[in-house]
């Protein structure tokens, strides 16, 4: 059995929207299939068993501890670097 990691993009009361790390595919998963994980924090990253990536078995989803924070820290560093030359204030483009 293979597995794929998925990141939680957003959630509503009825379902969760995940993005596959492998190919960026977006899926909506009913909250009823993830009751064993609730509550899920925004940005949570989970590993899900699948049959070659074609059919994730959401009831096997398991939280990858610390992964969301690791990604946020890495992204924050990139954002800081990206905006370091911003002079701030009003600008004429």
């Amino acid at each position: 059995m293979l597995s794929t990691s998925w990141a939680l993009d957003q959630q509503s009361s009825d379902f969760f929207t995940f993005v596959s790390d492998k190919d960026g595919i977006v899926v909506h998963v009913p909250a009823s299939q993830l009751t064993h994980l609730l509550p899920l924090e925004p940005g949570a990253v989970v590993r899900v068993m699948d049959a070659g990536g074609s059919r994730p078995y959401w009831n096997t989803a398991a939280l990858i501890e610390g992964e969301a924070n690791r990604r946020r820290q890495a992204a924050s560093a990139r954002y800081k670097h990206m905006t370091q030359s911003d002079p701030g204030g009003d600008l004429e483009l």
Partner: protein
Amino acid sequence: MKKLSWYHRPLRMLGVGLSFALIVASPSFAQPARTVDSKNSATLTFVSLGQGDGAVLRTPTGRTVIIDAGPDPTPMAQWLAKHGVTTIDLAVASHNHADHIGGMPEVFKHFPVTNYMENGVPATTVIYRRTLDAIAKRGTRGFRAEARVLKIDGVAIEVLPMPPESMRGSDQNDRSIGLLITYGGTRVLLTGDSEEAEQDWWLKNPSVKLAPVTILKAAHHGSHNGTSNAWMDRLAPKAVVISLSANNTYGHPHRPMLEMLRVRGLAPWRTDQVGDITVIMPLTGATQIQSERSRGLIDPYQPGTSASSRSFRSSRPSRR
């Protein structure tokens, strides 16, 4: 890597009739097309790109700003290619959800971006990482989302101040970038997927001087939590645009929001019903709205499919 498909697809807008409306007493009142002085006008097009947001601002000399790029690159890329865009002068990600930035990595590969702004709230998705990769590869200049005015070719893009991080933490929707675009006598407000918490903060913050606007993009695709009475009272828009797909998973637009518009005499312009929606902002004269397809007999108050009554296809991956 995603296969490029948009170069090979036929341009979907050719041969489609246009409808025009003047912003007069009722924005829903259709008028025959009239000549637009494009040399002295800016335009803002809400591209019909499925369940998401993506808009393109063209200045009078043809410089280009995009605000979000939708969930999939194809509609935005097709629009840019069809209109002869070669460079994006400024790209803004209102926030980092997939239905707003999903199209960015691929679009940025083919349309170089000079300047980029996002909300600074990192997402954990591969879509977000690829967006940053595309920006870094191009050497694009990054701007912080903070209270400021960016001027491009006479068009003012006022960035509303961001609420403090302590208010909503890593929540994306309520840290959406708010943009007030002004040209001539036209004022258009876009606030991504902002919900009541962020909007209340803007309404109550004395440093944010929100005044009536000509056009309001309904926040959060017409969700019940994206438009409040207080928000509408302050902004008093003459027309409202909603960017969404038909039969979307979220049931957008929600009935209470549509009812709120109805009692105010506003018939929303919906991308799911009329396709691309273009606001024409002349230097002088009346603002106009043009849509890809005629509004005809469409009921603009038709709510979306209720999320509770629709069937899910969750275990089969599908592109949004």
